[in-house]
């Protein structure tokens, strides 16, 4: 094998030495590709070069041969760097496969059942910026027409955020009480998160409880991006602000809650900061832009509105998502 390469190399080199044409160089370049695919190290290439030169030009002075020996010595570490790179690439591939699996596990783990409520049309979309999602939507519902929704966002992205989110999910599971009030729910989850996570990791959460019999939405927020209420009658957008600290900062945090009455065709827009913190080359995407997008499709089903907002924001940002994107729209019908 090595012998074959030596002969081929000598042949190609000899051709070049005679004519120095671009054609010869092109042949050489193709040959180097073959050397790489056969894992021939840089120091071996120089050694092959030296041997070929010795056969073609026997009478060159010793200084030339010494210089090649020196060059071989110089190339040893380059050869090692190349091998290290190959082994790191392989490891990267292993990690990628593992992340894919983890993302699948997460998807199964965080699956939530969309409630079917009289008079409420729900649309939702949650897209991770990387493989694992640090955003989370959770529904709790019962037969009496109560439905709770939690929209949460872990500060941070990727694997650590996803692991932290699983903890929030188990907190919500243990609650399993659909008529519970938002301030109660946020208080419980705050203590779960406060006890178990690292100092620089926090979760923001919006919690809304909808009562189908009265069309009333009671909501609270733990440091989360305020939900937006669109009033169909007046065409106005209002922030649904409720005072409350991020989850996991202080065990003593208390959470306010407020109630709004939904009228026909009103929209409640719940989201994470991946929706509002979008940026284009010209700067931030202002909230008014998002309001306008919603208004364009306000007469369509909730899912159509959600998809439209996502498609347009993605287009404005050249298909580049900087943060996990989660948007939920309730439409009173």
């Amino acid at each position, binding site marked *: 094998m090595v012998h074959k390469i030596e002969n081929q190399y000598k042949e190609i080199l000899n051709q070049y030495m005679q004519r120095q044409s671009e054609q010869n160089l092109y042949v050489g370049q193709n040959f180097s590709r073959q050397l790489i695919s056969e894992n021939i190290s840089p120091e071996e290439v120089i050694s092959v070069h030296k041997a070929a030169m010795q056969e073609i030009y026997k009478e060159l002075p010793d200084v030339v041969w010494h210089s090649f020996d020196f060059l071989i010595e110089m190339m040893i570490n380059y050869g090692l760097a190349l091998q290290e790179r190959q082994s790191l690439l392989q490891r990267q591939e292993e990690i990628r496969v593992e992340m894919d699996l983890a993302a699948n596990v997460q998807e199964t783990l965080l699956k939530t059942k969309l409630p079917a409520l009289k008079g409420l049309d729900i649309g939702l979309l949650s897209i991770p910026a990387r493989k694992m999602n640090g955003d989370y939507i959770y529904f709790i519902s019962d037969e009496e027409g109560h439905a709770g929704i939690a929209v949460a966002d872990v*500060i*941070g992205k990727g694997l650590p955020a996803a692991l932290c989110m699983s903890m929030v999910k188990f907190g919500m599971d243990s609650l399993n009480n659909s008529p519970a009030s938002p301030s109660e729910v946020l208080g419980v989850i705050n203590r779960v998160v406060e006890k178990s996570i690292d*100092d*620089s990791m*926090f979760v923001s959460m919006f919690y809304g409880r909808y009562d189908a019999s009265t069309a009333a939405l009671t909501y609270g927020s733990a*440091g*989360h991006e305020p939900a937006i209420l669109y009033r169909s009658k007046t065409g106005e957008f209002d922030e649904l602000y409720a005072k409350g600290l*991020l989850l996991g900062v202080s065990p003593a945090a208390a959470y306010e809650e407020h109630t709004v009455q939904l009228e026909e065709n009103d929209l409640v827009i719940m989201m994470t900061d991946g929706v509002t913190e979008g940026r284009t080359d010209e700067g931030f995407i202002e909230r008014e832009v998002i309001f306008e997008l919603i208004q364009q499709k306000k007469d369509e089903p909730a899912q159509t509105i959600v998809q439209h907002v996502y498609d347009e924001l993605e287009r404005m940002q050249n298909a580049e998502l900087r943060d996990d994107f989660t948007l939920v729209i309730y439409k009173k019908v």
Partner: protein
Amino acid sequence: MNIQVELEETDNKLKGYIHGEIDAHTAPVLREKLEAYQNKDGVNAELDLSDVDYMDSTGLGVFVAFYKSVNAKGGHVKLTGLSSRLKRLFDITGLGDIMDIESVGKGGN
């Protein structure tokens, strides 16, 4: 992708000046610099953010972690020069109520 952090400490008074953007890429730089001071007793820190033109939730995480450890050691953290955008971030998250922050163009708290 750019941030400048200048910290200067004399007699437990930490003066800081941060310039640039604080996001997932630059936050580790800031965290590392602040961590050098957060385990001292009774640090009185004042960080000037008037030249921070963008901060996301990762940056917020860094300040909260710093605030928590300094507070636990009997110290105090004050953030000054917050732009209206940054101020909103602290208000929404409820951190504006527990941390000492001062926005641009105002005298006191």
